[in-house]
């Protein structure tokens, strides 16, 4: 398997429309992915996997961490490998991260 997304110069992530994308979470401390939303559809259980839609859509990822300020990464999972898409700092007041995906 290969990674589907590439980050553009404007910071958005670009992928081929229709390609299947799997999202994961990486953190040095315990953390858990709760639910994601992409292009109006939501996924509430593993695998957090969906097909890239044409055009620009937001991918929202709600997570749960062990402590405020915990560093986390939204990663793209391809087989046994994973690659960082976005780094963010989780807190109880700000429990989600958003990525801009563009399907071409």
């Amino acid at each position: 398997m290969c990674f589907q997304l590439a980050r553009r110069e404007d910071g958005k992530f670009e992928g081929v429309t229709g390609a299947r994308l799997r999202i994961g979470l990486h953190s040095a401390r315990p953390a858990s992915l709760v639910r994601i939303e992409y292009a109006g559809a939501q996924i509430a259980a593993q695998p957090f996997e969906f097909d890239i839609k044409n055009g620009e859509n937001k991918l929202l990822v709600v997570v749960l961490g062990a402590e405020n300020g915990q560093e986390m990464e939204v990663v793209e999972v391809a087989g046994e490998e994973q690659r960082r898409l976005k780094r963010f700092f989780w807190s109880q007041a700000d429990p989600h991260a958003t990525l801009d995906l563009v399907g071409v």
Partner: protein
Amino acid sequence: MAARWLLLLASASAGLAAELPESARKLLSEYVVSRSAGDLYDLTGSDLVSAYVYRRLVREQGPERVSIQPFRRDLQLGSLDGAGAGTSLVALAGLTDLLSVAIETGAAVRKGDDKAMTISFSGLPVYQLLSGRAPAGCGSADAECESGAGRWIRGIEGSVSLNLSQPVTAVPVGAGGGFVLGGRQVASWSVRYELLVREREEKRVKEALQKAAEALREPAAKFLKNQAVFETKLQSVLDAAGWGATTRALIQTAAARPGASAAELEPLLLERYRLAYSLAVSTQELREATALASKAKLEYLKVQNRELAEKLYRKALTVDYSQVRPGDQPVQHQIRVVAATPLGGKPGDVGESKAKIAPSASLTVNAGITLFDQTGRSITGGRVRDAQACLGIDWSPTSWGVIRPTYTAAYYFQYMLENAAMQFHREAVTPGGEGASAPRTAAAVANTRGPIHVAQLRVSIPLGASGVALPAAVSYASRAELLTGRRFWQGHIGVSYDLGNLRRLRAPARAP
């Protein structure tokens, strides 16, 4: 409800603008080091901008502040002096998240019908007042307690117990009558620091988070839906105004200066977020989306924080100092440690709706020593007056309608290391109850060394979500502090009111 949020948005003032979200501050620090294009873009992402918008709403309006009372059953609203007037032998770990008042009668170790009014408060609202902000406290859903001074000040608590009894407590002295003692107006005061102890074992943390995440999957649906709509609309407005590109260019330029630090860049980023906020409330459509998203987020945060409290922050450790001022004894200094932990199953494991009605239990342990003040030391010759230990088990069974009582069984042990010192104030010593004052304060030492055992059964009945609770207890003591060889029963009754619910009660009246 959405209309209320719109009203809040419309009345927002720039003078109360929130600070940068902690997540944005941390990412900015990372960017200054990494100069990564990804981090730069993420600083202007719609998630961080919406976090600022939400934070600003909370800061300015404190909307729908949520009292922590429904989430915690280990809050003590009455007197902390287990031996004196009060309804609870055991000191619980927490006091209140805002302000509470309790009136209680009955002393467990000092035989008498003492009455006391106890005012308890949290340090955070006081700090907020002194900072020129609304004294909203911490609640359970805002970021005030997450970082900065609020994170540490939230643990500070205090209480003052005022003596409501008439100053005519009789102490039998011989067959001919007795002394009538005067009461002090302040029966006791306490300062304490409460630390919520997070689960530290990684394996347990992981399991707890997985369970909490499962419980949050459904509550997250509405939050995500509204948040996605809001951020999509916000992004359109920001892109049309060129906000993101301009902000990135400004930060990039500022960061390129020699010696540039994150602290120097923060005001710039904050200014840009303020501008984004202005754009976010610039149209009716966006204001409605902001209101819906913020409301849905708040609802999610309430559930999230309760899940975390139940699964991850289950234990509490409190250290307190009390100055105890019995009417008939010298002032005493008490230092105590309070530890509390839930027992058995975790209510959150059975789902949100059932969590409110599932039985729960907790264990509280106290240990402390009491020291004489200078007067007491000069009378008795000793410094450490007594040592105490107390164990209490709270049990909240299934609710009965809106009533969910908490039953407590407690055992208290006190060992009098020194004889007790009695003190008769000059102005109040009136032999036989007549009005003749003594020439000076009189003191006496009673032969009271040895153990004291007290057992207590208590019930506290909260009246729905009103903040009012009615505690009642009965205790049985092997002896009194000042009288040995005499066992006695004592009844206790009280009423308490947690003012943390005030905003909730007032909210419907303010709603348009």
